[in-house]
Structures are given as C-alpha cells and as structure tokens.
C-alpha cells in the first residue's frame, strides 16, 4: 500500500537525517517502526506527509509510493486527500480551538455529509471526546488530547494512518486504551497502520511486522514475533538483559541487512 524505496532526507542541505530507507506497509497490516531518540522516525513521517519543506528538509533521493502512485512531490493536502494521514508526535492539536473544531478541521478535505458522519463515528469511538467536545482542546489531559488527535486524523477518512509515538508521555492505563482502539480500528475497519514507537514492547505486541531504524538507517526488519525473539532487540529495545545501553551497531554478532542484496 505504502512503499518507500531508498529514501534519503536532508535538512538545511547539509544534515542527513534519513538515508537509504526502504520499507513496505501492506494493506490491512499494522507495521511498527522502532528507534530511539533522534533516529529519524519523525523525519521519515514528515517526508511521507510532504511537510518537510517548512522545516528546511527535503527528500533528496528515492521514491515514496502510495496506492501505486508516486507521492514524493505531492502537496500535503493532496496526500491527505489520497487517504494517507498522520497523527503527529506530541498530538499537535490546535490548542486554541475547541475539541469539535479540531475534529472539523480533520475533515477539512471532506464533504459536509462525510464530516457529519465522521463526527458521529469519532464520538462513538471516544465517548470521552464527545463529553468534552465544546472545551478548548489545549486544556484537555494528555490522554484526551491523544484521542482527539486520532479522531482528527480519522475525520479525514484515512486508508492508512501513521501514528508518531502515540504513547508519548501517557500513563500505562491510558496507553492500553489507545492501543486497543488502534487494534480495533485495524480489525474492524480495515485501517492500515504505520506505528512509530520507542516503546518496542507495546508496538511489537500489536504489529505484525516491524522495522528498526538507527541513525537514519533501517538496521533490522522482520515479523513482529521474530523481532521480539531477537537477542539484540531484547537487549536494546525491550530492556530484557540489563547492562549498559549500547548502540545496535556495536553488537558484533549483529547481522546488518544489506539492502542492495534484497
């Protein structure tokens, strides 16, 4: 459904934040993209959504294809219209707008009738959001804000939704609820999901496939259960074997995947 081939992203014509990334998200799947701080996860999502330019970033190589069409040069609103929608890191709500206004803006590219339908759907999914629909979204709790952010994305009728660290700064209970919703949407509405997380434990529980990114490169990929079983992933992302946190690259027995061979 979404496929990236050898994508390279540069900020300010100098800093290479993503290099040679290839990945594939099959229709109907939940795919996890894992990596630590500064690995280039958000940069990759911004590249896919076409919003790098205002931050001085640029896709300088490779192709991004969605539903068989190249979207590397498409405008952000065009990408949203195609059904590829992002829930940005840290929620990024329109803080001065009410909850309902946030949702309405999520449906900006949709017809009036679709917007009305979308509102009903989001309110059914998140009764809490319905209760607080007339409040200024900036004053909501983190969990509520995340629900609004997801609801806002759903208003645009996505076929594929990309979530950038939805668990960020939330209590475990709240995170469980959010992840449950993601799984429900995936199972019942056939929503395809690209899930970005630092919390590998959580992400690999719901995903069927995962990629691990470090320093702007994909260093490992595989089925979720395989990744969970992988010693390195256990050590560095699931925190299973204590010890100092090194970088994945320092691991000697680690088999770097050679993209040019695959």
């Amino acid at each position, binding site marked *: 459904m979404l496929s990236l081939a050898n994508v390279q992203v540069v900020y300010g014509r100098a800093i290479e934040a993503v290099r040679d990334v290839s990945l594939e998200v099959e229709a109907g799947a939940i795919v996890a993209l894992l990596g630590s701080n500064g690995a280039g996860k958000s940069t990759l999502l911004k590249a896919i*959504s*076409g*919003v790098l*330019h*205002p931050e*001085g970033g640029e896709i300088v190589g490779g192709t991004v294809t969605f539903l068989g069409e190249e979207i590397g040069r498409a*405008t*952000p*609103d065009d990408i*949203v*219209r195609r059904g590829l*929608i*992002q829930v*940005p890191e*840290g929620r*990024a*709500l*329109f*803080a*001065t*707008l009410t909850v309902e*206004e*946030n949702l*309405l*803006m*999520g449906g*900006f*590219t949709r017809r009036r009738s679709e917007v009305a339908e979308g509102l009903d759907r989001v309110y059914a999914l998140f009764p809490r959001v319905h209760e607080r629909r007339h409040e*200024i979204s*900036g*004053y*909501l709790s*983190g969990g509520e804000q995340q629900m609004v952010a997801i609801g*806002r994305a759903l208003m*645009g009728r996505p076929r594929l939704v990309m979530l950038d660290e939805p668990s960020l*700064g939330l209590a475990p209970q709240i995170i469980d609820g959010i992840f449950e919703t993601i799984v429900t949407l995936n199972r019942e509405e056939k929503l395809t999901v690209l899930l970005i997380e630092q919390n590998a434990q959580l992400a690999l529980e719901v995903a069927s496939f995962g990629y691990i990114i470090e320093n702007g490169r994909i260093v490992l990929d595989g089925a979720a259960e395989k990744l969970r079983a992988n010693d390195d992933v256990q050590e560095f992302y699931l925190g299973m074997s204590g010890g100092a946190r090194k970088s994945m690259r320092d691991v000697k027995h680690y088999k770097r995947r050679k993209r040019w061979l695959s």
Partner: protein
Amino acid sequence: MDFLLLLVSTGLVTGAAYGLIAMGFALVYKATGVVNFAQGELMMLTAYVSFSVADRTGLSFLMLMALTIPISMAIGLLLERIFIRPMLGEPVFSIVMVTIGLAVILRGLVILVWGPDPAVFDVGLPDTVIRLGPVPFYPAQLVLVAAMAGVTTIAWIFLRFSRIGIAMRAVAANETAARLSGISVSRIHAFAWMFSSAIASIAGVLFAANFKLAPDMWFQGMKSFPAVILGGLDSVIGASVAGLVIGVVENLFQGYVGQGMREISGFIVIVVVLMVRPYGLFGSREIERV
C-alpha cells in the same frame, strides 16, 4: 451641547476608522504570523482605486462599495501572490521587511498615478446633518461607525463558524498540524490577505469620505497601531473594540489635556494596558499544556 458627549462621539468616529484598519492588521497577523506594515498603504490604494471608479461611474454609495470590495479583494490576492507567496518558509522577519518594502512601493505608486495633491472624494452620501439626541452627525460619520459594527459582526461569525474561518484559526494555532489535516496553508494566507484588503477598502473609502483623500493617508495605518497592540495583535474582534477605545481616549486627552497629547495618548494607553495584560485586551495567551 455637552463637551464630553461631543468628544466621545467624534472619538467613536475616528475610533471606528482605527478599528477597521486594525482589524485588517489583526486578520493577516492571525493567519500568517506577519505584521503587514503595508496595511495603511493598502487602505490608501484601495481608496484611490474606488475614487477612480466613482469618478468614472458616479455610482451611489452602496453600488460603489459593491464594486470596490471585490476589486480590493483581487488587489489583496495579487499582492499576496507577487510579494508574499514567494517568501513562504522564509523567516518572519524577512517577510515583515517585504511588507515594509511593499508599503514604500504603494506610496510611490499612488503619487505616480493620482498625483501628490489631496482630492475630494464624493462617495455618494448626502451632506445633511443628522441629529442623534443632542449630537449632530454627518451621514458619512454614521456610516463609518455602522460599517465598523457590521464588519466586526461578520468577522466574528466568519471566524467562529465558517470552514475557512476556523481553518484560519487552526493555521494560527499550529501550521504543521494544519498541513497534516489537509489545509492548504498558502491558500489560507491568500484568503487572509484578500479579506484584510476588503476591510482596508471599506476603511479607506469611509476615511476619505469623512476626512480627505490624500497620499499621506497611509499614516492612518501607523496611527491605528496602538489599537492593534491593545486589541492583542491576533484578535480581530479585539482590534475593532480597541480602535474605539483609542479613538475616544485620544479625543478626551486632546479636549481636556491639550492638543499635543492627542498623538501620544494612544501609546500611553497601550503601555499602561500591556503592563497589566501583556496579551492585550483580547489577545490569546499561549496555551501550554502537554
């Protein structure tokens, strides 16, 4: 007649002009984050264009406005397209510098096309004095105040309920999130320029009708600045209310303190208000909560 009442009522008339001009500033600032220093010049240019239209056609006031407003919207769109759009993504400071450059260009253009001498602009309103209680008004004065009230109401409804209006506030709140929602930020910026130019033309024509049409009219833009700050810079409704406040305060200072006080009184008001309310009377303080 009561001296105070006279000062207040004429203050409201000048204040209405300030308020309209300030609303134009606030609208563009709100949607684009840029103070358009050419707002006063835009008001002057659209007033002169309207003057030429009136000169050729001799239309009634309402017909003249019905023609002036769409022409001004087109001018606003054009200026945004030529001067502002290419600057998208540049630092705000550079864009502000461009608006200052634009201001100088427009001042020159007006003198080049219409000459340096003041002109009498007959907007098609009668001269008969109307008495509201003890206070006499010219029709043009009342129309100015009514126009301000009308524009304020329309702006409020537009920003609160219309899709484009909410999108303007969304862009102001978080530009990246707006893009990720499929809102074309550059189109919203263009809309802001278009509407602010429409408001500028209403202000310009009515200012010219009440005072004069001259190539130094742009200075009203600067004089409206206290109202913009007082209103909170990004509050369109605040700007209009603040315009009235500044207009009345200026008149009272002039009446009771002395002539020279008029010019500085507006700035005294903003200094005092900003000490108490740093976001102006209606400006939005940043909502910070994670």
